[in-house]
């Protein structure tokens, strides 16, 4: 684990530029994934808590919401979706992309939103990313109710707290890799020296220092997505949202990207939420939220993630309450 502070004379690394917010435990190497979903039909009593109560039976104060990864009050909740519905007008009627979805994501999670095409994955990510507004319900980011923010404040919130990784990379083609990574810092008003320093460190953290001066058209798909990841994390956001990040990558690049994101998640404590139906990615995730027809049908923790405490504390999200499955990878 790199030190969060930089020693004089020591080479600059991405991690040294940002003090860690979360004292995350050292993570073991990524295990070869072989999760087997064991569906629990019904709602096992030993895994369920009353809504609003913690695992010790005490009433939830609201500071530590009950959800799979938020087992103690020490892990703050970063994203909360409460009864979120999103409808789109289509041919003189409304189509529900999301229907009464509840989701709680703690800081530091590595969470996948999975589901078939049209299940509402991207819509949910857009809502969490504050680039779309729910028709009903509300989204809280770091305790801030985004529905109460005006566009200017929403923009500022996205700028500071959220990093985006897109399926099609969405790099600015006329910028070099380094300049692309600098862009969020430019928007945040960092001076050029600091921008260059941080961008270089971010590129180093994704293993692309040597390609810093290349424009996107000269990079491979995997390299472009790594640049996109560097861009998403360069300003050290609280949350990184990735929409189908491996969809345009071959297996080798996809695996490398997954490993990279997971590594950043562990080392920097960055919260990753990504939509995917890529089995390769799902195998590496700590938690999988499955959507179908705009509803949460499963909220799964993998074996790595689950501990005895988590099991005791686990409460499925309210959105998964309609005959849904709590699947544990064991």
């Amino acid at each position, binding site marked *: 684990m790199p030190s969060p502070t930089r020693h004089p004379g020591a080479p600059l690394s991405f991690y040294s530029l940002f003090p860690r917010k979360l004292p995350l435990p050292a993570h073991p190497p990524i295990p070869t994934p072989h999760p087997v979903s064991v569906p629990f039909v019904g709602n096992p009593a030993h895994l369920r808590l009353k809504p609003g109560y913690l695992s010790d039976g005490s009433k939830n104060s609201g500071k530590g919401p009950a959800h799979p990864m938020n087992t103690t009050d020490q892990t703050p909740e970063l994203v909360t979706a409460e009864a979120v519905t999103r409808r789109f007008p289509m041919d003189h009627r409304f189509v529900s992309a999301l229907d009464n979805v509840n989701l709680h994501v703690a800081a530091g999670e590595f969470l996948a939103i999975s589901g078939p095409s049209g299940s509402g994955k*991207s819509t949910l990510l*857009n809502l969490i*990313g504050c*680039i*779309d507004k729910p028709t009903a319900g509300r989204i809280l980011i770091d305790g801030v109710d985004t529905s109460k923010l005006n566009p*200017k404040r929403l*923009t*500022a*919130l*996205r*700028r*500071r707290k*959220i990093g*985006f990784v*897109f399926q*099609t990379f*969405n790099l*600015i*083609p*006329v*910028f070099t890799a380094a*300049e692309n990574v*600098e*862009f*969020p810092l*430019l*928007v*945040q008003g960092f001076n*050029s020296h600091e*921008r260059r320093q941080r961008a270089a460190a971010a590129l180093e953290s994704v293993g692309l220092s040597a390609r810093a001066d290349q424009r996107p058209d000269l990079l491979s798909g995997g390299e472009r997505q790594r640049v996109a990841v560097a*861009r998403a994390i360069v300003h050290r956001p609280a949350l990184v949202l990735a929409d189908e990040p491996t969809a345009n990558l071959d297996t080798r690049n996809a695996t490398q990207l997954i490993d990279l994101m997971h590594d950043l998640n562990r080392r920097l404590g960055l919260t990753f939420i990504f939509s995917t139906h890529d089995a390769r990615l799902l195998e590496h995730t700590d938690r999988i939220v499955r959507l179908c027809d705009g509803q949460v049908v499963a909220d799964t923790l993998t074996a790595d993630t689950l501990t005895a405490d988590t099991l005791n504390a686990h409460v499925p999200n309210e959105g998964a309450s309609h005959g849904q499955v709590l699947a544990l990878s064991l």
Partner: protein
Amino acid sequence: MAKFLLLAFRNVFRNRRRTIMTLIMVGGGVAGLLLAGGFFAFMTHGLREDTINDGLGHIQIFTADHFNRDEVRVLDSGIDNWRRVSATVQAGDHVRGVAPRIEFYGMISNGVKSSVFMGSAVDPNAEKSLGFTPRLASGRDLDGKPNSDVEALIGSGLAKSMNVKVGDGLTLLAVTTDGALNGVDVQIVGIVKTGYAEMDARYLRIPLASAQRLLQCDRVTNLVVGLDKTENTDQVAAWLTPRLNGLPQQMALRKWVDLATYYKQVRTMFDGIFLFLGLIVFFMVLMASVNTLLMAMFERTREIGTMLAMGTPRIWIVTLFMLEATLTGILGALAGLVAGNLIGMLLNASGLHMPPPPGLTVNIPFRVLHLPGLMIGSSLVVIFSLALASILPAIRASRLQIAEALAHV
């Protein structure tokens, strides 16, 4: 800001073919304005100097009554002590000389046929010193010797009408200040082409002394002042005005621009044509650029969505598009300046001549003036046009719904 400017600059060259087409269009507009404006400027500048050097001078001094004069007895309102006035004017800076004149009217006859003339009695030496030389079609100018015979120059149209040539004699008839009819015989020493057909049909030029003898008066109707540069006219006029007010006779001065009616008409016409051309170029660039920039916005929808998603303020997107358009305008203007000046130089070197315009009888050389003001003005027209054209695409880009923009294919 530098990085943002760099982004705008690189975006300009993102679609090179389209950018080149835009630059050609913008540059063509600038070059067109430069050539048209440069040619018009040459025409008006040439007309101005011709008008002045053809005898109008930079400033003319009259008595205040001159403008209410009786056209038959013009010297009734003439300048009495014109030599003193002339000496006063001569003392001024930038004054090259002063030429006394009598502008009068009368009849001219060859014994068989008579016609009306518009006479200009001059001091040939003073005229020569100011460079006011008549355009001779044949013969010579008045020699200005005190005891020479009564010499005359007549317009080519009048000569043709009277069926006379150099060396022939004519009789002039005019009304004296006493109201009597007086006559004097003159010998034609030259035939003049003023450049204006109407003028050529009436023009007569005789020495000042001859006219004073004909009109029986020592006065002159006006004093023509020649300056070193036309640009000094206002300065000298300002200097002269109080000095003329101190004279016993009430005097008035007129600057060349007040007297050059034809010049003003031509200038107004050229200004109108140039304004019309400028508007055409402005709207041509505006419309074509709106289309181009909307295409660029459409192509970059997802990129704009990405930038907005990353928290880029919407005003930055507006600024970016306007900056790109302005940069395109600047580059196009530079290309147009280079092209316009090069073409102008080639045309100037070619020695082309234009056929005479209505009212003139001589060919006009085709020249293009390279005027800094025109270059700046033409460039600003297209730059402003492009900046204006970018407003709509820029605002549309900034108002994109991020989620929709990111899903744009």
